[in-house]
């Protein structure tokens, strides 16, 4: 017993002060991309050609990045000869629709909006989620799980992962939705009582991720269910996931300047 107490004393109190303060992210963390089209050499297509998931589209005003497809890998920024496309340390990536996930020169994506007033009344103070891994690589699952550890202590923010869809207010889906998981995902959704929401976590769940060309998967959760929140990343950092969840229930507001900007 004395050893446990001594360890308790040595290990100390480690719950993060978030959302009052934002924990420091690593210097090399790849968050929201920034595009400076004025640096783009004439006719250059290096970033779009380097992108393995076709997340970059070249438009007259310069390249734009679809955060839903982006794996946040270094291929585009490494390929750019002028540093016109680079990652910032901004972890706030979640959005309410796939259209809102577009980042273009001079325009960030539209960050996630809070639920409607009626949904907020029902779910805003206590949100219980059932997690369905539908072809994920366990990367998103790992960083969702982390939110339950004592450093993040998700429960203190009114959000909890539950063991039955009957106890849930919605689903948190990871993975591109494999053909083999479609029925299980639909059945789990049907078992959640109304009103209910769906959250797609990670590049796979948004648009198929590294598997977007494969016939074995369905190209993301929104091809199967109505999705209310998209959280980009491969996998998203736990802070990105938490930011998205808290925006959804209005605990982090649009203008809250947590993070880098």
């Amino acid at each position, binding site marked *: 017993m004395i050893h446990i107490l001594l360890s308790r004393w040595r290990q100390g109190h480690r719950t993060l002060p978030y959302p009052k303060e934002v924990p420091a992210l690593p210097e090399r963390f790849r968050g929201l991309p920034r595009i400076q089209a004025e640096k783009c050499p004439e006719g250059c297509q290096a970033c779009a050609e380097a992108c393995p998931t076709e997340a970059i589209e070249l438009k007259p005003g310069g390249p734009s990045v679809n955060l839903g497809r982006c794996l946040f890998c270094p291929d585009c920024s490494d390929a750019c000869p002028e540093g016109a496309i680079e990652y910032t340390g901004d972890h706030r990536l979640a959005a309410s629709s796939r259209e809102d996930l577009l980042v273009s020169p001079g325009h960030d994506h539209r960050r996630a909006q809070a639920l409607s007033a009626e949904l907020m009344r029902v779910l805003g103070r206590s949100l219980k989620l059932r997690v369905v891994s539908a*072809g994920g690589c366990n990367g998103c*699952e790992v960083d969702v799980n982390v939110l339950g550890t004592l450093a993040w202590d998700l429960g203190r923010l009114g959000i909890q*992962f539950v063991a039955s869809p009957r106890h849930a207010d919605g689903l948190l889906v990871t993975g591109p939705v494999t053909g083999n998981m479609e029925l299980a995902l639909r059945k789990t959704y049907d078992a959640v009582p109304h009103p209910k929401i769906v959250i797609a976590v990670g590049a796979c769940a948004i648009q198929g991720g590294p598997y977007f060309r494969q016939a074995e998967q369905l190209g993301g959760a929104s091809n199967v269910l109505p999705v209310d929140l998209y959280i980009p990343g491969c996998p998203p950092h736990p802070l990105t996931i938490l930011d998205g969840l808290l925006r959804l229930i209005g605990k982090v507001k649009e203008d809250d300047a947590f993070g880098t900007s």
Partner: protein
Amino acid sequence: MTDLAMRTLRNGQTVGLRDVPELTLSSFREAILEGTRGGARLACLCAASDLRLFAVLADDAGKQLRVAWTRLAEPKYPSLTPECPQAHLFERELAEQFGIIPDGHPWFKPVRFHLPWSDQPSPWGRDADSLPAVMDFFRVSGEEVHEVAVGPVHAGVIEPGHFRFQCHGETVFHLEIALGFQHRGIERALVGGPHPLSLKQAETASGDSSIAHAWAHCRLLESLAGVEVSPRADRVRGVALELERAANHVGDLGALSGDVGFLPTASFCGRIRGDWLNLSAEVCGSRLGRGWLKPGGLYQDLDPALATRLLPRLIRSWADTRDAVELLWGAASVMIRFEVAGRVDPIQAREIGLVGVAARACGVEQDVRWDHPFGPYGAHPISPSLAESGTVHSRAWIRWLELIESQRFLLEGLAELAGSDPDPRTGPLPPLAPDSLCVSMTEGWRGEVLHLALTDDRGRFSRYKIVDPSFHNWFGLALALRGEQISDFPLCNKSFNLSYCGHDL
């Protein structure tokens, strides 16, 4: 004919396909049976679309691999499994992927529940409307015997799988595991590559083992392209792999203590695991090591200034880890549960071809870093950690021994990197050798990760095979449950902590 007829190979060595002996079917079978009787493991058995079968035997004591192939005249051959149980899942996979029937297989069922890639019919008469995990499950009948079915969706943040327990009261007679829900088609996606997505798919073969899979993939490409990686880049890759191992072992030890209700270690380790992951993120920006390794070298170097900054954080993480984990070994309530639960018989462990932590927990001396050294592990060896009893305790203890070794390797590695100049940026690889075969293995935190590639006449992948350690080990979990209480399933399961997506691919 003996297995001397097989071609000897080093881990990561490329050979021209015409230098790999084609055996007759009977010699091929005999080479595998004789090799495994002599103590070698069947590390890989796979088919290519033209009815060719390839086998890789790992002779761990002799520190070499052996490879051979045969061409079938018809999509059918006498099964190896009755004489060589470790072939059981490989043979079911051959049938599922290419419609090749292993005649006489005693446990002939689908693996991932997809239709054959070739135009052969499904051996089980499955069609596009067939549902996953619908198959002929083994059932025990009798008075008071009942069946418990769990999944695919589980009561936590866990990947999907379907488990059927045949129980008598609390006692489990038999557990059968049906997977395939995570099947997203990696091996098929890699054919025709390498292309820009190949590395991303390798990194996500099993997302908590990104470095182990990315490294196996990179070494395979480098070998096929004839490129040597600098010793410094290899050292950084070693640091990446051991950080991955440390984070996962710490997480598992915490989860194991949570499963027996010992909360101090469970809570501490949940957090400390993050500290280890964050060390990886300092170097590559990703907690899971994404975007760190690159074919030919590294995306991101661990430059001297960064290595110097990480050293004190490593020392702190290790001190916290030791403080949290050592509580376990002194807690009688933990030990009494660990020591009696989930035993796998060491003889059966060899027969079914267990690898990694689960094998070493049964006294099977096998570790790719030692037996088939790659990267820095030749010059900086890590010897296999061993236990004997094959119980949950042994699997936990192995993780602890490996943590000690990993932190030693990391301390030395960071100190060395702090004093050496960074490499120039890694450029693109030259084209791959045509008509060749390469087998590349690493030791991930669960165990042996194997990537095998065949190239066509243009140097593109004509076949890419991935064997995650979980593929070998899921059946070990089923054996560990025999005669146990069903209430100990979470504990036994966590002591293996196998990958669903690594199995399902």
